[in-house]
Every structure is written in C-alpha cells, then in structure tokens.
C-alpha cells in the first residue's frame, strides 16, 4: 500500500483520544482490592531535633492499620541515593533518610507515616500524631549558610558546603588585565517550583507469595526508579516492576527517587497489602524538588568593539537540605559547560559552591543548569551593550560563533554539533520588524510610554548523552537509550522504548518514525513505554533526550529489522539482498519491480519459517541500544516586546517571537506545543514565579494560591518559527525541543523589561520582575 512520508507531518496525537475522554491511566487511577492509603506526617520546622513522637492516639483510631516512625523504618530502607557524584569537588553526600530519625532539616521532611483504610482516616491519624521538637536555628540562604557561625545541618559537612566544583579554561587573569572593558555584577536566579499538574504518587503492591513488588508511580524514568528502589529496599531488580504509563507532567520533578515511593514499597512488603500514596499539592510544594536558586557573581572582560574576551563566574547553588538524586550535576556541569553560550568566548572560569540549607532539596527543573547559564550570559551581554552604546543585536553578531566554524569546540571541551546562529536572529528581526519597532519605541518614549525589546540568542545542550561523558562527569549511569522493534506475523509492529514520554507525544512521533522506516501504516505501529516488565531497559525522558536518543535507538532497531527482512525476501525471491530495493513497504528486484514481496508478507514468512535458510533465525525483531557520539545543541533567537507602566510597574506583553533551530522536525505541531509550554515556564520565572521562604525556613508559597504559575490571561500568544540545521549525531538529524523555550525566554523577557526602563537609568532588577520590584526601581531612580 502507498505510504506517505510522515517525517515532518503534523500528525494528530494518538495519545489524545484516551486523555480527552477521561480514560488516561495515571497512577491514582489504578485500583487494587485491599488497598490501604498511606499519608505522611511532615515537619513544620525547618530545623529541629525530634525529642519524642507519640503515635498512640493515631494507632488507636478506627481504620488505622499501622503507624511508623523513622526509627521503625530505619532498617527497612537504605537512605535515598545520590546518583550524580561530581568528581574533584570534595563532594560530601550526607545521609538522606526517607523518614527522619533524629533531626528534621526542612519544612516537609517526613517524620512519621500512617496507613489506614481510606484517605480521610489516614489524614485524621496524621493530625493525631504528636511530635515534640526541639527547634534549632535554621538557615535558608546559601550565602548566609557559608558564613562563620551559621547553623550547621550536618556534623559531617563543615560550613554546610557539600561541594566546590571548578571548571577553568584559559588564562582569566591575563584576559582581565588586558580588557578594555570590565564588568562585574551579581545576579540571582531565584528558586522555582516545578508544579506538574499531577502530584506525585505511588501504588505499591507486594505479593508475599511470589516476593514480587509491582509499583505504579509518577516517573520520568521507570528503570532508573527500579534500580534505585532495589538499592533502598534490598529487593532484587528482577522482583520489582515499575509502571508509569500516563504521567501528568514532570519537568524534571519526577526524575529523582523520593521518600514517598520508597516508604510505600517498604510498607507494602511489610504488610503484604497494596499501599497507595498520593501527595497533596501542599506536600508537592514542600517535598517534591525545587529548581534553580543560584546566586552568581559574574566578571566579563571585553574589548571596546564589543568582543567578549573572558567570562568568570563564582556561583552559590542552594541544594536544599539533602542532595537529591541528580542534584550535584545540575548547577555544575549543566551550567558551567554552557557559559560561553553562542559566542566565541575563549576564556571561561567557573567555580560553583553547592550549599546545604534548611529548604526543600533542589534538583533538575526544566532546563536544569542551562537556564541559569543562559540568563547570566544574555543579561550580561545586554549590560555590556549598553555600557558600550551598542545595539543588542550588533554585540551578539560581533560575538557569535560563525557558521563556518562548526563543529565548534568550546574552551571547556564541548563540541557544538552544528549551528547558524545569525540566521535565527535575522529571521526573528524580520518577524518583529525590528527597525520599525525601534522607531516606535523612540516615538512612544516622547509621549511617556515605555516599550522594551528584549533578546535572547541562546544555544543549549540536550539529547543528554553519551555514556562516556556521563561517566567522566560522575553520573552514576549510562546515557544511551534502548528500543526493541517487534514485528508480528501480520506485519504489525510493537515498539518497546526506554524513553518515558509524559506529555511530549512520542507515542505519535515514534510511530511516525517507524511507519517511515518500515513502510508500514502508522496505525499498525504500537508504542509501549513506562513498564519495566515490558521494556528491556531505559534511561528515561529528561534533558530533551527522548527523540534524539530514544528515537534514534528505534530507528536503528528498525534498520536491523529491515536488514533481516531484506535477507529473507532475497532468499524467497532467489536473488541476493543487494539486488533488492525497498519502497513504500515493499521489497522488489531492482529492474524488475513486479517481482517483490510486501513487508507484511516477509513478516509472515519470518514466523512461518517454512522456507528460511539455516543461517536465518525465525522471527522478526531487533533491539538497539543507542549511545550517540555527542549531545545535540539546539539554538535560536527569542524576541520579547513589552510595555511597562512606570507608575504601577505592570508589564504588558505586546509580542513574543521565537525562532528556534532544533534540527529536523518530525511533527511540527508537537514541537510548536513544546516551545509554547517552554516559553510559558521561562516567562513565568521572569515576571511571576518565586518560591519564597521566610527567615525561619517556612515556605511562604506552599500552595497554588501563593505560587504564581501563570493563568491563561497572564500569557500572550507566541509567534513560533524555525530554521533547520540538522545534527550529524543521530540518523534523523533531530536535536530536541523540550527545554529550548524555557532556556531562551527568561532572559528575553527580562531584557525587554530592562530595555523599556532604560530612560530611568535602570540597568538591572533581579527576577521576578513583579510590579512592586519595578515600581520600587523606578521610584529609587526618580527620587
């Protein structure tokens, strides 16, 4: 049958029919008979010694089955592991107990656990547990935590310093001394809360008869969770099955191993009954990871013509009270390696201090390290442009890595795969009609109205891989991805992928790839993910790696399948394999197109095996583990246009244009959606979202009432366009689109607001640019 090429087509998502009719398969939807509900008692103190826990009232309540304290669980669960052990940084990993034993270290730290017949009783019982604390002084700010005399979280971590990581390339002092212009600034990349709409949760079901644990949980990486669950419970991996088919958003927050899932597993094993734990939103805010929280001291050396000659950064990363699963790698490698951005900066010096504080642990949140680097650089280049009286576009052009320099090796050793940075800037300028906009801006200023134009010409590293690099960076795992392509006797195809999409639509894009590769109808391709019992192995979905790494694995597996199918077809058609051509799902003899077999006919013969030669095994299936030679490096230009009311500090979005280059695009509709959502989150950091703690370590923004994730009326419509520069590192030439929007948009928005406020002499305001902060800045300058 004729098959249209699907690569590049805006195919409607096959995920949608179940999700728009209320038939998704999210963790909390799974029901098992005899399930008990678990609830966690959490610390209201940021730092305190646990003196006594009285669980007697809770235990006596009708419907309560069991109550556990940290002491009760201490020998049933090993501490939560840290899986990114950054080398040469004097890293100290303090013990991270699922339930605190002697001391609590942040508001939200687990202190006791209840299991009961239903959620109402469980919550009542949690309230009935009486914990006596001896409060200790708390510290929430990472710079203060390093000061002499600051409260100490751990005896074994002096000065709360978990690590000091360094990445130095080139002679910074020489560049600094030779510089014609020197800029030094302090920038704060504040703390955010990922806020996936589906809270985290688990249903753990241990079968005492078989010794097997099945756990449905909200996971971006089920196999990684299986490995970690095995490590903490002592059950062998072969006895653990992790299932996470529909996951309601993650943004990084569903990568780590957490207390809740571990405890549910341990208690299910203990009681031999299914245990369900679903966190409340308030728990999500205090006990699921936060992101960013990076204080940066930046030095930029440049020439008068705008050429940047060196960048130096000393950064203080707030790690929270414990080191979460991937936490040490985020503010270090994923940040420091990108400090030259899209620019040919020859000298990069980076020192990062990872600091423990009495706050919720931080870890990877959409972009993870790269937004912190991009914001720093894009903000500083604007400050430099203003200092030199240059247009922000000219200073960027001056420093761009030229397109004939790719592949480009950065001073710290990354190899940028491909790029044409100026093309995205040119296209974006055309879309906003830059010259006219600047004229309008000048005219409006005359009339006391302030519009601003902000740029972000970013490059990011994604498609996280390869495994050798992961090892060198201390990541305790490989960064390949696997796929198994199973062709059934009818020629229908099941793909088992180690990626675990949770909104990114790979059930659709992966089926597009397979349909094209094997020439089979799209409808004949089934994509299976999120079940460790079905998928051979997988590293999961994060770091915009699913398509570039997981998709490439399945393309390679398809090619192995096709190669075998071709050998079978050749044997049956009595020609040699190289005499066959393959088009539209059919093998045929070159020069004699009538002599041929469809892919489906070959599949049937592969399973009948009546006429196979001895050297060809029956069946038609292949597995491929793809470990790319390099990461991918999407890039682009985002332009934000705002109007700021200096009287009220209010920011109105007039226009937002994004021109991204994510390499080849499999499904433009889905990529546009990823870019929209990414921009929304990055824009929200710039002007709305802010995780606020008081001095005692109370999270003041612990609900959706207080933490400002944007509503529909708070966002503009985005204009999205693309250039296409394929990557050579995978067979499809795709780069990744999950994080570009978030990485690019924050500085574009801030630069726009600051540009609008230029007439007031305002050079910088730390985010979020709330009306109050803007109003205060304007008032200070006007006074």
């Amino acid at each position, binding site marked *: 049958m004729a098959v249209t090429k699907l690569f590049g087509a805006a195919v409607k998502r096959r995920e949608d029919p179940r999700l728009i009719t209320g038939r998704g398969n999210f963790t909390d939807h799974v029901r098992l008979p005899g399930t008990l509900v678990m609830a966690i008692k959490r610390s209201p103190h940021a730092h305190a010694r646990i003196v006594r826990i009285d669980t007697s009232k809770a235990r006596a309540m009708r419907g309560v089955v069991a109550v556990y304290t940290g002491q009760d669980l201490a020998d049933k669960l090993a501490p939560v592991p840290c899986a990114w052990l950054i080398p040469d940084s004097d890293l100290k990993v303090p013990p991270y107990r699922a339930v605190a034993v002697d001391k609590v270290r942040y508001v939200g730290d687990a202190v006791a656990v209840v299991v009961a017949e239903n959620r109402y009783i469980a919550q009542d019982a949690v309230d009935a547990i009486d914990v006596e604390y001896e409060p200790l002084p708390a510290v929430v700010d990472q710079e203060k935590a390093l000061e002499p005399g600051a409260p100490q979280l751990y005896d074994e971590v002096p000065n709360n310093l978990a690590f000091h990581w360094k990445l130095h390339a080139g002679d910074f002092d020489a560049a600094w001394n030779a510089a014609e212009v020197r800029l030094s600034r302090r920038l704060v990349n504040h703390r955010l809360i990922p806020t996936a709409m589906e809270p985290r949760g688990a249903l753990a079901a241990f079968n005492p008869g078989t010794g097997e644990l099945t756990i449905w949980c909200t996971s971006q990486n089920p196999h990684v969770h299986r490995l970690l669950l095995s490590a903490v419970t002592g059950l062998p991996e072969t006895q653990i099955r992790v299932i996470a088919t529909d996951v309601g*958003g993650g943004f990084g927050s569903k990568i780590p191993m957490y207390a809740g899932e571990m405890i549910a597993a341990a208690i299910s094993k203990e009681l031999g009954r299914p245990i369900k734990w679903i966190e409340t939103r308030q728990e999500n805010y205090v006990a699921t990871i936060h992101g960013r929280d990076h204080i940066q001291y930046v030095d930029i050396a440049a020439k008068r013509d705008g050429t940047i000659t060196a960048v130096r950064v000393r950064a203080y990363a707030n790690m929270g009270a414990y080191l979460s699963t991937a936490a040490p790698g985020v503010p270090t490698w994923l940040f420091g390696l990108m400090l030259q951005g899209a620019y040919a900066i020859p000298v990069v010096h980076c020192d990062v201090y990872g600091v423990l504080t009495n706050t919720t642990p931080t870890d990877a949140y959409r972009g993870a390290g790269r937004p912190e680097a991009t914001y720093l650089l894009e903000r500083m280049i604007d400050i430099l442009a203003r200092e030199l009286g240059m247009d922000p576009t000219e200073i960027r052009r001056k420093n761009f890595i030229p397109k004939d320099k790719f592949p480009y090796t950065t001073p710290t050793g990354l190899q940028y795969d491909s790029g044409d940075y100026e093309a995205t800037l040119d296209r974006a300028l055309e879309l906003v009609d830059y010259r006219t906009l600047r004229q309008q801006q000048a005219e409006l200023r005359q009339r006391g109205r302030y519009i601003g134009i902000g740029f972000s010409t970013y490059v990011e590293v994604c498609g996280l891989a390869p495994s050798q690099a992961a090892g060198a960076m201390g990541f305790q795992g490989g960064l390949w991805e696997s796929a198994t392509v199973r062709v059934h006797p009818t020629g229908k195809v099941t793909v088992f992928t180690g990626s675990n999409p949770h909104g990114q639509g790979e059930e659709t894009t992966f089926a597009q790839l397979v349909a094209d590769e094997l020439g089979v109808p799209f409808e004949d391709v089934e994509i299976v993910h999120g079940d460790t019992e079905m998928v051979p192995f997988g590293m999961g979905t994060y770091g915009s790696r699913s398509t570039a790494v997981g998709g490439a694995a399945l393309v390679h597996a398809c090619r192995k399948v096709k190669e075998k199918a071709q050998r079978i077809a050749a044997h049956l058609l009595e020609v040699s394999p190289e005499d066959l051509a393959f088009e539209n799902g059919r093998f045929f003899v070159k020069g004699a197109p009538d002599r041929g077999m469809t892919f489906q006919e070959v599949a049937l013969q592969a399973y009948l095996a009546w006429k196979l030669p001895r050297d060809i095994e029956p069946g038609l299936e292949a597995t491929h583990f793809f470990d790319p030679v390099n990461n991918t490096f999407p890039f682009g230009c985002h332009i934000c246009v705002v109007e700021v009311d200096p009287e009220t500090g209010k920011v109105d979005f007039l226009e937002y244009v994004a021109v991204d280059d994510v390499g080849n695009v499999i499904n433009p509709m889905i990529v546009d959606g990823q870019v929209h959502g990414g921009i929304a989150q990055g824009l929200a950091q710039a002007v709305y979202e802010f995780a606020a703690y008081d001095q005692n370590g109370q999270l003041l923004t612990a609900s959706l009432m207080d933490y400002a994730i944007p509503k529909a009326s708070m966002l503009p419509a985005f204009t999205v366009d693309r250039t296409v520069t394929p990557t050579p590192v995978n067979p499809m030439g795709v780069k990744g689109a999950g994080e570009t929007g978030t990485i690019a948009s924050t500085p574009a928005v801030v630069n726009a607001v600051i540009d609008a406020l230029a007439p007031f002499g305002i050079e910088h305001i730390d985010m979020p640019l709330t009306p109050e902060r803007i109003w205060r800045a304007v008032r200070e300058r006007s006074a």
Partner: protein
Amino acid sequence: MQITVTVNGVTYTHDVEPRLLLVHYLRDVLNLTGTHIGCDTSQCGACTVLMNGKAVKSCTIFAVQADGAEITTIEGLARDGQLHPVQEGFWEKHGLQCGYCTPGMIMTAVDFLQRNPNPTEEEIRHAIEGNLCRCTGYQNIVRAIQYAAEKMRSGS
C-alpha cells in the same frame, strides 16, 4: 447520609460520609477517574465537572450537596461514540500535552461556550482562568476552544 445523584445519565444511591468530597465520590465510589485532582485549594480546576449544567470544582463540593443533582463528567461528554466539539477541538489543535488538566479544562470550556457561543480570545483566556495548565502555555487550548465555538455555531 444517603444521596441520590445522576451521573452521566445513570442514577446512583449511596450512603456517604457527610465530609466526602464530590470528587472523591466520583473517583473512589463510582470509579469515574477521568475527573482529576491537582490541588487542595480549588485553584487548579482539574476536577471541574458539570452540576446541573454548570461548571463546578468537584473538590469544593461535598457529595451530599450533589444530592438530587445531575452531574456530567468527562466520561459522559461524548455521545454515541461522537466526541463533543470541545473534545474534538483539543485533539485537532493540540490543546493538551500531559492531559492531566484536560478533563477539567474541557468541562469548563463546555460550560463557557453554552453561555458565550462566540467569544473573543481575551474572553476565552479569562473564562479558563480557574483552570491551570503547566504544559501548553494555553495557546493551543485557546485555539481548541475557538475551533469548538466555530463548530458549535455552524451546528455541525
């Protein structure tokens, strides 16, 4: 307390605790898990259902308050295998990614379009303020609702 509720055209009678929330009644008693829970302060709107034709957040209503009411959940929206135009719009216009906010978002849009069949983009953005989405940036949700409005107006 005994309540009688008609959900998606089926009438149920159950004894429930007075404090049982409607959303837990729908999910835990009737096994209608299409209505989602995303918060505990009535901000996110994932639990939105129609009660006597009007959109309500089912986490903010006790099951006993729904006694005698007619409830429509996301599972009851498609009729005779035919998607509601709002559901169709979400599919056509890529109005969802993870799909967690989607049932509530759709129910809110259904209620809104009954009251305002020809909304502007601004009116749509205002109307869905009580429903939070973290994936889409809302742009395609707005388009999905515009698609549905047009389809419903043309009566097809």
